[in-house]
């Protein structure tokens, strides 16, 4: 495959990318880039346009407007870059009557990839001993592992994974996380969508966040989290006292809400001592006082309104 001089900086570049189905905009003027060699989390509520975006990046659907480049090549010419891209889109999809190994061999043959790679990947994803069984006998977790193996077949520069941990047990989730880190350590770019935001927060350096077909954030994850307001989370011994805590906070100019039996107060961490003293004077016993920065999950809910 030929190389493109502009590959160096960004593995994915998207400018004004739009996909409309009749009057419905599945993706609207999306702009973002994914630097080469990073792990980029791709998040958004169901129906936000994540899979539509991924399909356009893989040349499976045609953009209505805008442009996108993958590994320096336009998505209108997928044959120029897909030999260096591995992908698992919307869950694994294989022929049920073929074995796991045969399914990978079909794809390896199609992509002119050495057949020896199949055995390596079966081992890598932990399907040893089951590769010769028919796909239709696999559990959801095993199907997912086979999907990851298929994505890794071409030893890709760019790996696009759509919900790779779906159906995996905690051990499997950790294995996938470690695998993604290992691949990123080899200089590969990983573009991964997941609903497990805590997992993405651990592994991602970049985040692209979608809401209703629009990009609401794209950039380094630190930039996203540090831009959020610090929060003080309070629990009281008597549940009804939470409303008094909210009143105290709001009287001091700090917006507060009650969520899941806790008061979430926007305010500097130093104000926690003041709150503790004020609550004590009002006869309220605090069972928890936790100054915290919003994590990715809270930020996601805040920015997408998905709660």
């Amino acid at each position: 495959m030929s190389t493109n001089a502009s590959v160096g900086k960004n593995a994915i570049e998207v400018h004004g990318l739009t996909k409309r189905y009749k009057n419905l905009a599945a993706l609207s003027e999306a702009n973002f880039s994914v630097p080469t060699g990073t792990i980029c989390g791709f998040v958004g509520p169901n129906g936000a346009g994540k899979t539509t975006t991924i399909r356009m990046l893989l040349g499976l659907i045609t953009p209505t407007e805008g442009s996108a480049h993958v590994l320096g090549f336009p998505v209108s010419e997928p044959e120029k870059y897909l030999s260096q891209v591995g992908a698992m889109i919307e869950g694994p999809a294989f022929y049920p009557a073929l074995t796991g190994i045969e399914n990978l061999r079909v794809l390896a043959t199609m992509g002119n990839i050495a057949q020896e790679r199949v055995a390596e990947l079966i081992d890598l994803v932990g399907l040893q001993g089951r590769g010769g069984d028919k796909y239709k006998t696999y559990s959801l977790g095993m199907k997912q592992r086979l999907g990851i193996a298929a994505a890794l077949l071409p030893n890709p520069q760019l790996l696009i994974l759509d919900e790779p941990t779906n159906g995996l047990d905690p051990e499997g989730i950790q294995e996938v996380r470690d695998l993604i880190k290992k691949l990123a350590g080899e200089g590969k770019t990983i573009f991964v969508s997941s609903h497990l935001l805590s997992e993405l927060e651990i592994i991602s350096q970049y985040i692209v966040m979608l809401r209703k077909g629009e990009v609401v954030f794209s950039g380094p994850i630190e930039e996203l989290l540090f831009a959020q307001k610090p929060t003080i989370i309070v629990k009281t011994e008597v549940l009804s006292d939470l409303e008094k805590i909210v009143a105290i906070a709001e009287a001091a100019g700090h917006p507060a809400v009650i969520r899941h039996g806790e008061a979430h107060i926007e305010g500097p961490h130093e104000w926690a001592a003041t709150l503790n003293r004020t609550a004590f004077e009002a006869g309220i016993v605090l069972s928890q006082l936790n100054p915290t920065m919003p994590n990715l999950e809270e930020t996601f809910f805040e920015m997408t309104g998905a709660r």
Partner: protein
Amino acid sequence: MFKVFQAEWRKLRRPVLVLGSLASSLFFTVLVTVFMFKNIDNPQGNADRGASIGRPILESASGSITAVSQVGLFLGITALCIFAAQSAQEYTYGTLRNLLVRQPARLKLLAGKFAAMKSFALLIAVVNISVSIAIAFTLSDGAKVSTAMWFTNEGLAAIARSSLNIFISIVYFGVLGITLGLIFRSPISSISIGVIWSLILEGLLFFVNENIPKWTPVSQFNTIAAGGSADISYTHALTLGTSYVFLGTIISAILFAKRDVAN
């Protein structure tokens, strides 16, 4: 394209698919061949719709292949089902997206799949023709049919010519199957529509107007396999059948190349 061909054969060579396809097509081939020779003197006929195929025809140079030529419709429908299922299941399983990631040149992918399916059809044709000739030869003594002309140069040429016609017919049915598979993207829908059209609707159209089958696709494909018929000449069937196949290929290519793969 050769890589696509090889990859497609990894799916086609499954014993269940190979043996199932051969068993279903051989069922009709064996049935028709045995029926034709065992009922050669039956006044109610020994061929399609009570027609009689007597000793003069069976003893001619093309006698060895007369029986299998009558099974074109069933061999064709077998091919239609296989081709329709193989093309439509890529959508229902969602496997097309994997294939397109590994081979993004869509027309190359379609051409490779089509070539593999054609070679599968060739396998079906060769096995059915061979088995039919073997059964015909075995039953010829009992039916008092001379086989003296069967394996002369003229007889071998007739076998080659009829084999080619059967192969063309099977491939044409297959193209119809692929087109239906790509239009409906569901094996059940495409096979149902293909089989109902081939076995029932075209037959009903004959009762509406007996000239209609001269212009319908399945009649042309069937006539090609038989090397022509009393109602439709071979040249007419080949010309019109090829036109239908050309149209089907264009529709398939446009659908496959241009349509979003959104499932």
